[in-house]
Every structure is written in structure tokens, then in C-alpha cells.
């Protein structure tokens, strides 16, 4: 489309500006709110006095630092475990012919469609039986159901696209399948693993239902649960300034990550999936 008249160009840019404002305003508003003083939070648009009071309170009034560490640990562990399991399984799934392979891939795809609520009670049983209730390990285990099928699927797809000749050379050298997986494929798969790692990390970082159900004490909560359950001194006042401060802290690194890696994410979103 090429704008034919100045009026049309202006209209078009107004539309673009509206899209940008619509997409970014809630986050900008959270930043503005988080910098206001507690008493002035509902008054006016801009803060009369910029203060970091909300940020200070967030870390002094509750274990928010622990919550951030919990989220980091869980998300990192989930990413690493799912990539390791998926990478090892991707070789036979992408390269070998065997009975049941198709059914297996279908089952993996099927699991990715599971609603979380359908496994909640059973996972709770398993987590309690293993003594992992109210622990980070329990959350890591539960989160695997969300990311493992995706990781296996995408890595299997990427592996299929790697030239067979490379592998043949290694076979002639007498390397076994496990060594081939680790020495031939792993380096070539690095970009795919980075994309999968990022998306699994974000999924685990954002996960709410399991984290809400399988933790009990505030020090074991992940960030989304902590933010959802921030309460004021009394039941009647919600500390919005503090909630917005928490929201900004959690979101800034994610936005930075996404903007730096945006090309890769867009590619990853449309990588290895279903053909219509």
C-alpha cells in the first residue's frame, strides 16, 4: 500500500500510533503508577513527586526477592530438563524407523493439548507422594507437562532438517547414536535449543495455576502467585503502587529479552508445527 494523498498518510500514521499506544499503554501506566507516592496514587496522570517508595516496600514488606529467585530457579530448571529430555529423544524420533513412532509423536502432540485442570488432582497426589508439596522441585515437575511436548516436537523437527551426510561421516568414524546426538547434533541444534529454551523459560516463568495450587507458604511462591496475592495491611486497601512496582520488575527483563530476540521468536513461533 502506498499512501496516495497526504491526508491518507496522516490517517495511516494515526492508526499506527493508535496500535502502538494500545499495545504499550498498560505497561507505561504501570511504570507511572509505581513511581507515585502511596497517597497520590489515584490523583492526576503524572506523579507529582517521583519516588521509589513502592519498590522499597515491595522487598521489605514481603519475601519478593525470594519469589524472584524461586521463579528463576524453576524456569531455568524446567528449560534445562525439558531440552535435555527432548534432545535425547529427538534423535530416534526424527531419524529412525520403528513401530509405534507415529503413535508416539501423536501422543506427544496430544499431551500438549491437555488442559492443566485435567491433571491438577493427579499431579497433586504425585507431588504429595514424593514429598514435594510446597517445594520448587514439585513445581519443576508439574511444569514439565506444559513444555516437554513442545520441546520434543520442535527439536524433532529441527533435527530432521540436518543433513544426513554429517551424520554418515560420524557413523563411518564409528561413533554410536548417543555420541552422535551429543557431538554432531548438539552444536548444530544450538539455535533451535536457544529458541526452545527461551519459550519454555517464559512459559514456566508465567505459569500460575500449578504454582498457586502446589505452594503454601509465601517464601515458596513464584512471582505470578506473589503478585496475585499481594495484600495491604488491611483487607480494604489494595497496595496498587506496590503491585505495579512488582509488575514492572517482573516484566522489564522479559520485554528486554523479547525485543532483543524478536526475530528469533517470530521464527520460533512459526517453527516446526502443523501443516494446514
Amino acid at each position, binding site marked *: 500500500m502506498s499512501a496516495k494523498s497526504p491526508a491518507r498518510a496522516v490517517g495511516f500514521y494515526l492508526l499506527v500510533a493508535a*496500535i502502538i499506544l494500545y499495545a504499550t499503554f498498560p505497561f507505561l501506566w504501570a511504570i507511572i503508577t509505581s513511581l507515585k507516592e502511596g497517597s497520590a496514587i489515584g490523583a492526576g496522570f503524572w506523579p507529582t513527586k517521583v519516588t521509589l517508595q513502592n519498590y522499597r516496600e515491595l522487598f521489605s514488606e514481603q519475601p519478593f526477592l525470594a519469589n524472584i529467585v524461586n521463579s528463576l530457579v524453576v524456569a531455568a530448571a524446567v528449560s534445562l530438563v525439558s531440552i535435555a529430555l527432548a534432545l535425547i529423544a529427538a534423535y530416534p524420533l526424527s531419524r529412525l524407523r520403528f513401530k509405534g513412532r507415529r503413535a508416539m509423536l501423536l501422543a506427544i502432540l496430544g499431551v500438549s493439548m491437555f488442559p492443566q485442570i485435567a*491433571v491438577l488432582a493427579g499431579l497433586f497426589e504425585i507431588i504429595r507422594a514424593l514429598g514435594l508439596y510446597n517445594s520448587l522441585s514439585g513445581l519443576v515437575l508439574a511444569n514439565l507437562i506444559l513444555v516437554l511436548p513442545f520441546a520434543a516436537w520442535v527439536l524433532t523437527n529441527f533435527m530432521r532438517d540436518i543433513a544426513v551426510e554429517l551424520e554418515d561421516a560420524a557413523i563411518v568414524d564409528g561413533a554410536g547414536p548417543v555420541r552422535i546426538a551429543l557431538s554432531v547434533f548438539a552444536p548444530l541444534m544450538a539455535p533451535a535449543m536457544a529458541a526452545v529454551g527461551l519459550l519454555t523459560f517464559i512459559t514456566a516463568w508465567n505459569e500460575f495455576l500449578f504454582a498457586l495450587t502446589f505452594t503454601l507458604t509465601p517464601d515458596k511462591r513464584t512471582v505470578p502467585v506473589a503478585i496475585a496475592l499481594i495484600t495491604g495491611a488491611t483487607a480494604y486497601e489494595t497496595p496498587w503502587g506496590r503491585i505495579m512496582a512488582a509488575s514492572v520488575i517482573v516484566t522489564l527483563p522479559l520485554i528486554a529479552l523479547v525485543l532483543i530476540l*524478536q526475530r528469533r521468536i517470530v521464527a520460533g513461533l512459526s517453527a516446526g508445527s502443523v501443516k494446514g
Partner: protein
Amino acid sequence: MPGAMAPRASAPAARYESAATKPSAFEAQAARAKWLMLAPLLVVLLLVAGWPLIRTISESFTDAYLSSPDSKFVGLDNYVALMQDPRWRRAVLNTLAFALISVALETILGVAIALVLNANMPGRGLTRAAMLIPWAIPTVVSAKMWAWMLNDLNGVVNMMLMKIGLIAQPIAWLADPWLAMASVIAVDVWKATPFMALLALAALQTIPDEVYESAKLDGAGAWTIFTRITLPLIAAALTIAVIFRALDALRIFDVIYVLTGTTRATSTMSIYARQQLVEFQDVGFGSAAATCVFLIIAIIVAIVVTVRRVDVEPLRSAS
């Protein structure tokens, strides 16, 4: 987690297709190692997906409570009670309405934004980056941001509307049943539209310019070009995106739970089931509700797979 769906180039020769060139010693070794390599993935999937699902389905036929481990078989009693519960029926209707309206709006908005982004203009990268922001924000955080914007006393939405004189009194967005539903839909649309827009954009960029030029030579108007050329060409990619979004919307929990809790007006199937399971500790009854959510989603997936005969890339067998 949404996987996505650009059609891929033709598949290269897979290992098993060049079996003739393979030393047989390796063949044997690979066959031996195969199950060892698959085992970790399969065992974990059975532990976190297979077994819990079987438990949920089997518990749904019992009167189990979290506090009392010994339960007895009650047949379909839970399901009968579920169908008779007006709160469940409301939750099902809420879920369907939410899914239908939010996915429709996301699709329309997503395509519209993708068309804007597809135009040759300066600042396209900036707009695309801005679009990624709602996608990157954790769902719970976006729900809290909007809860604050929609706050009746201090919310910026009421502040703006009163400033331009559209309303005289602050509106309690999340308290009124209809407005609460509209609000949760609006938040979901804000969060998920970028996903649709990016996928629609990817599809748009595969359409060659020549197609448009010949249509323009024939004197076709913008609307005709859109409905006759653009839409049919991106329909396949859109359909898949719509299915993924619909499946997400049917199991929705976090946005609504954070915005309006378990209130009846916006309660969905997942919220209802979790309330029964966790708050009321009624494992049998809650499992029946959870099983229903699973069945509804499974049926939709089955229909989609059979109707569209989705060709799944890695499934292509060599034979």
C-alpha cells in the same frame, strides 16, 4: 504453549530413507540405543501427564475427598450432580461465550493489525516490537495491570472517560456481571491479539506482490482484493492459529481468576473445577468437572484433526 504453523518446505531425506547407505553395525547399535534414548522423555510424560489424567478420570467416578483417602465407587453420580448444578451450567456458558467472542475479536483485530504492519512504511519495526510487549507480559501481571486501570475509584479508564465527559459517575467495571465479562474479554484480547497479528503477518508476507498487481490491473477495489485474494491465501494459517487460541480460551483460568476471582458472573469451567478440587476438597466431584473440560477439548481436537486432515510434518512416514 502455542506452537505455530507456517507451512514448511519439503522435507529432506530422513535417516531411515537412506537406510541402504547405512552400515549395519550402526543399524543394530541404533536399534539397541533407541529405547534408552526415548525412555527418559516417555517416563516423565507418563508421570506428569498420563498417570494424572487416568487418576482424574477414575476419581470422577468416586466420592473421594481430600481429607478422607478411602472412597467408594459411585458410578455417574458426580456427572449427574454436575449437570444439575446451575453454577456449572453457567460456567460452561461463560467459557463458551468467552472463547467465542475473544477469539473472534482477536482474529479480526489481529488480521487488521497485520495488514497495517504489512504495508511498506517507516516505523514498521517499532510497531512490531510494540506488538510483542503484551505477548511478553506474564498473564497474571497483565490481569493486575488491567485490574488497576479498571479500578472504580482510582482507575485511569474511569479518569479518562470522565475527563472527556463520556461518563458522569465512575463505573464499577469488575463488579457488574456483564461489564465484568466484557472486561475479562478485553484483557484477553489485548494479551493475545499480538500472537494472531504476528502469525497473520507471517502468512501475508508469503503472498507474492504480482498477485496484487494483476488484480489491480483488472480494476479490483481494496475490499475485493482483501476478500477474494488475501483472505483465502492466509485462511489456512489463520485457521490453525484460531484453533490454538480457541483451545487456550476453553481452558482459561489465570486472567479471569486474577481479575474477578471465583465470582459466578465470570467463572469458567477451569475455575469451577479448581474451586471444587482445592477449596471444597471435593476430589470426586471436582474431577468430574475436570474430566468434562478434558473431554470438550479432546472432542474439538478430534473433530479438527479428522475434518482438516492435518498433515503433521514429522509424522510423514517414509513408507
